[in-house]
């Protein structure tokens, strides 16, 4: 005759469990805060790394496009007046997919068929990457690997099979040199190189020939000045020489060149003694720290531009016709250009995005290691908080708590700490990375700050923090919950 009926123990509601958890946390507030602190630091570090990478990539992308526009004139002048060598052609050819007209021009210069063009450009890009890789080595290593040759000739040298084998042999000897990509890829590059090399040579020949045809025009006037004039004859001459340019593009370049030419003239005028003196006094600079960049920076305001116009009309030896607004605009363009250039230089490491989440490999390793360290820290903190409560767990079990209820109490406690740590940590990490980007890029960063991505990272970090902390608590609390009550009491 069974004395009692065994029914299933009613499961406790989550609200009641939450009550229990909350009372427990409040009682041990200091310990809970320490755990939160560990989680906060971990999350802040990870969020900061992620967002910094994101910010500098966005800044780089935007500045590069804008800088390309700002440099239109200098691109055109050097294109039609500066004799090129093979390395320059290789570099330009590899990047020729940015402008359609340029691609066509190269196809004409190099006498390549349009079908083959993308293939050749691909080879050129790989070759360029390889040359950059060699250039990044120390001189001694490079010398031993590729001999005394530099630039594009390295590949000419390596296209001979014996040299290539010797190269691969030597690479193995240097423990510090690590080649990216496989040997097969390298072999393929070397094999396809001669064809590309011939195309590049043809481009070089024809390009230089075209420039030679234009050179007589530049004897009296600089190319910028010629462009600034924007005469019909000059356009025809450029076209006849073999460069591709349509009327609209010529008009645009010509307008920009006018500003550029005026800028060059004005910058020269800064150095005239009378004007230099006036500027030094006005801008509170000593003569020996006189720099064109600083002058441009100060001339951005309307009043300063107006003031300089008056001095210019008074003192300048050679005069051009211009308005104060022109000066202001040129000054703004100049300042903008140097800022963008600085930003591009500062974000050069953002190019490398081979690692996690578009970070560089170095940063990814840093991220993983730091997350592991913090993971161990969090697990340890939670392990401690479970271990010191064995007696309490045993008591709760004696009072009839289910194993699963005890598990829930601890997982919930850890998750709560994770949520708080995640929120605070992602706020700190986000703010610091925002401040860092603002300090190094200033207004360039502000105009297109990735607010949406930041919000995403916040949400992911908060949920992730809670989830990971909860997961870290599962093992120790499950172990504690499974113990027979008496064993649990004896451990303490």
């Amino acid at each position, binding site marked *: 005759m069974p004395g009692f009926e065994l029914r299933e123990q009613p499961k*406790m509601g989550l609200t009641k469990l939450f009550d229990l958890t909350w009372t427990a946390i409040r009682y041990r507030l200091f310990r809970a805060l320490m755990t939160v602190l560990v989680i906060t630091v971990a999350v802040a570090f990870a969020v900061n790394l992620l967002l910094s990478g994101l910010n500098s990539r966005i800044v780089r992308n935007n500045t590069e496009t804008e800088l390309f526009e700002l440099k239109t004139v200098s691109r055109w002048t050097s294109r039609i007046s500066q004799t090129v060598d093979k390395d320059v052609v290789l570099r330009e050819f590899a990047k020729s997919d940015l402008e359609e007209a340029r691609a066509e021009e190269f196809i004409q210069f190099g006498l390549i068929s349009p079908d083959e063009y993308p293939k050749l450009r691909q080879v050129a890009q790989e070759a360029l990457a390889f040359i950059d890789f060699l250039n990044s080595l120390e001189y001694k290593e490079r010398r031993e690997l590729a001999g005394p040759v530099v630039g594009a000739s390295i590949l000419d040298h390596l296209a001979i099979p014996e040299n290539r084998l010797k190269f691969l042999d030597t690479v193995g000897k240097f423990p510090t040199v690590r080649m990216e990509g496989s040997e097969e890829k390298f072999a393929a590059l070397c094999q396809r190189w001669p064809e590309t090399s011939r195309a590049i040579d043809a481009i070089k020949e024809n390009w230089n020939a075209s420039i030679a045809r234009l050179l007589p025009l530049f004897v009296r006037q600089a190319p910028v000045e010629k462009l600034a004039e924007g005469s019909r004859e000059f356009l025809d001459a450029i076209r006849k020489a073999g460069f591709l340019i349509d009327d609209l593009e010529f008009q645009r370049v010509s307008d920009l060149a006018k500003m550029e030419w005026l800028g060059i003239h004005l910058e020269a005028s800064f150095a005239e003694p009378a004007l230099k003196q006036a500027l030094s006094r006005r801008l509170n600079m000593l003569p020996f720290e006189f720099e064109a960049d600083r002058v441009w920076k100060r001339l951005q305001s309307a009043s300063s531009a107006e003031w300089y116009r008056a001095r210019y009309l008074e003192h300048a030896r050679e005069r051009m016709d211009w308005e104060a607004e022109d000066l202001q605009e040129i000054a703004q363009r100049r300042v903008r250009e140097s800022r963008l250039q600085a930003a591009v230089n500062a974000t050069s490491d953002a190019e490398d995005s081979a690692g996690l989440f578009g970070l560089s490999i170095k940063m990814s390793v840093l991220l993983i290691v730091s997350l592991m360290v913090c993971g161990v820290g969090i697990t340890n903190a939670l392990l401690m908080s479970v271990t010191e409560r064995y007696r309490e767990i045993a008591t709760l079990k*004696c*009072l009839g708590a289910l194993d699963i209820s005890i598990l829930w109490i601890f997982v919930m406690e850890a998750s709560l700490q994770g949520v708080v740590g995640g929120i605070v940590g992602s706020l700190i990490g986000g703010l610091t990375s925002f401040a860092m980007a603002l300090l190094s890029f200033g207004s360039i960063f502000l105009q297109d700050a990735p607010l949406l991505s930041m919000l995403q990272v916040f949400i992911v970090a908060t949920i992730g923090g809670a989830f990971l902390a909860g997961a870290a608590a599962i093992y120790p609390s499950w172990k504690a919950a499974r113990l027979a009550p008496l064993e649990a009491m004896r451990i303490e």
Partner: protein
Amino acid sequence: MGQEARESQSLERVIIRTVNLRKVYTQKKVETIALAGVDSEIYQGEFLSIMGPSGSGKSTFFNMIGGLDSPTSGRVMIDEVDVAQLTAIELAFLRCRKIGYIFQQYNLIQYMTALENVTTPMTFAGLAPDEARNRGMELLELVGLGERWAHRPIEMSGGQQQRVAIARSMANLPSVLLCDEPTANLDFQTGQEILDILKGLNQERGVTIICATHDHRMLDICDRLIWIRDGSIDRIARRDEVEINLGSVGGEG
């Protein structure tokens, strides 16, 4: 109810029975026999004392019949149900409804008030909060702490804490109360109060009370005594037989 009538009644019904109960602890390949085959019967409604020197297996036996520890071999039957056969959930049910525990160290939950400590087992049993609160206050008044329901364990004396622990053990009106040296940490006067409360529960509510103890005052109030020595039952005696031999018991202790 007369003494004899009560005994004859309780003899009718066995609430806990152990059959050839063995427990062997193995630590670093050294086997220690804590219980070497114990057969015993505990009757409903009696006040039982388990006595014995330290290391006699007394605590092991006590924990085993409370379902706090599992035997190496043999069986513990509570209300004719084999404890070893129960699942974790059924064991939780058993601890929640059938058995109340009182410890030497009180084992109150530090961050809860007296009332919360008493109502926690009721919550585990699925009682509604209002009902739990009312019953909790009743129990606290029964042990004389109705005024101090909002105090935390840290704000109470040892005797008061033990009284809260008794109230908590009675939360789901269990039929068995297991007390592990309930008076060992208390002074003479306070220990006497605790014993009075236990005796009261036994007589007025008919709760079966099993005490592991060194306290000789227990001899005055218990119905039956079990002496354990070297892992087996040395002697079982009714109280009236013991009083005659009190001298020798003191000599033994």
